[in-house]
């Protein structure tokens, strides 16, 4: 009897089987494509470790919790609770989305000039890479409190656009722009290294930005 229960538990906790059974898959923390220390000296290993294994992990965990509560509320037809869960889903869902994009935007081989089709788009919409860098840095530094600076793609008008979002508000859901590059300006993203000097962090991050990834995202967005 006990063995039967244990077997069922083991089977039930297998993610693939859960999917087959029609249960929602839990979100997981994506791995980084590089070591925590790989982005030194631009972003310290300590920051990367805390940012990824603590902050992003917390968003993932809290998102899973919120989604479970949502599923329960939906099953019961409890619309009040569904609505009340909105902010938690936005914070944690946004946090998970934003950081997942961010880790791929950065690379130890990053920096330098934009490449590929996105370079043409940058020159067309901003005049030059320098101009984009200046505008996007200014927008990121100017974020009040916590938030993100974004380079996004406006599909409707076929142009690149700079935007800033507060807290973990996700770019696409908030503005309709497709995210290409995000700069996290929450204090946890830079404080241990740069303290209150956010401009230094924002200027430095361009040294580890992966244009390959941004170009990939741009091509995917245009389709």
């Amino acid at each position, binding site marked *: 009897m006990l063995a039967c229960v244990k077997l069922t538990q083991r089977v039930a906790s297998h993610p693939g089987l859960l999917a087959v059974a029609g249960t929602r898959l839990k979100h997981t923390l994506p791995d980084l494509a590089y070591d925590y220390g790989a982005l030194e000296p631009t972003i310290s290993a300590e920051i990367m470790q805390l940012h990824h294994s603590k902050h992003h992990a917390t968003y993932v965990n809290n998102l899973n919790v919120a989604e479970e509560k949502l599923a329960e509320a939906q099953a019961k037809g409890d619309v009040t609770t569904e609505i009340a869960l909105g902010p938690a889903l936005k914070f944690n869902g946004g946090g998970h989305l934003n950081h997942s994009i961010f880790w791929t935007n950065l690379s130890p081989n990053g920096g330098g000039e934009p490449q590929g089709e996105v370079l043409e788009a940058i020159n067309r919409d901003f005049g030059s890479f320098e101009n984009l860098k200046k505008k996007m840095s200014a927008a990121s530094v100017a974020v*009040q*409190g916590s938030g993100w600076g974004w380079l996004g793609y406006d599909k409707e008008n076929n142009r690149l656009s700079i935007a800033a979002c507060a807290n973990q508000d996700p770019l696409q859901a908030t503005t309709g722009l497709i995210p290409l590059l995000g700069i996290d300006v929450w204090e946890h993203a830079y404080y241990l290294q740069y303290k209150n000097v956010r401009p230094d962090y924002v200027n430095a991050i361009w040294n580890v930005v992966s244009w390959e990834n941004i170009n990939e995202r741009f091509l995917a967005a245009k389709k």
Partner: protein
Amino acid sequence: MAVQQVFCTIIFVVTILSNASAQDSTPSPRRQPKWCPVEVQEVKPYRVRSGSRTECRRACTWNRFCCEFNIIPVYTTAYRQVSRQEWKCCDDTVPCPDKTVSVDTPYKGIQLFADEYPVPPLPYEYDALEPYIDERTARVHHLGHHAGYTKKMNAALKAWRDEVGPGVGLQSNSILHILENLDQVPDKHRTAIRNNGGGFVNHAIYWATMSPRREGEPPRLPEATLATEIIANFQNFSNFQEQFTNTAKTLFGSGYVWLSRNPREQTLIIHTTANQDSPISDKLRPILVIDIWEHAYYLKHQNKRPDHIQDWWALVDWGQVKALSDWWAAYDAGHDEL
């Protein structure tokens, strides 16, 4: 010439008389007495470690020498120059009440008009809040963030005042009065005043309601009248503390958690503000605050905000909270000599 002089004198007298009669009412959009901050230097003694001596804890068994030492620190008294702020009347045309205002608390002075507000000094040394708030955080928080907000606020006020020119209006009032009437600040300047003026005042209240904690100090609790009020609004102190802590734990992004008085209903409420928004703009009277921006705790606690909240409770000075509450009462009653 003589006619001109007589004419000027008449105008002068009329101006003074009309100003004098308007002098003792509560601040409103009209010319106010002008106070200027003055730095006063003072030499104060303090205890400093001058060295150490050793004390034998255990003598060796095989010889007459000492094998284990205790190191006992030795202190001596040293002196250092400490600066304090006082506000003195500095405008001749609109005389001030006959007093010098001494700023022994960071928020005193926000109710006065100034061309340029100085960064209020901390009421304690940067390392005095250890081990609850580390010295590095206190320094960067005060000299980096608080000072930054002060500078930008002064710039925003100057830009606004220069644009409007001389004369009465909301811009010729104290930052406190301006924050109370934030919706009347012109669109062009409102964001800068809201963020930086808010940052200036919010941090002043944060520093003011904390104080260094001595080793072995018993738990700090509010005194009689404040305790009664807390119980009336929150059933008991423990409930209040729990509610405040939970609010602080779950606040998203950057902001503050406040205990404020609603003067119209005479209730105490726990509420939050985002970024540098101030309860003053909601016509509330804040008496206690915790700064939940990551810069307030990241160097010491990193992502562990609950630890910061716990450490902060150890520093809350209920005497100062009561003093701030009384200060608001005096301000609302219209006394200038705050």
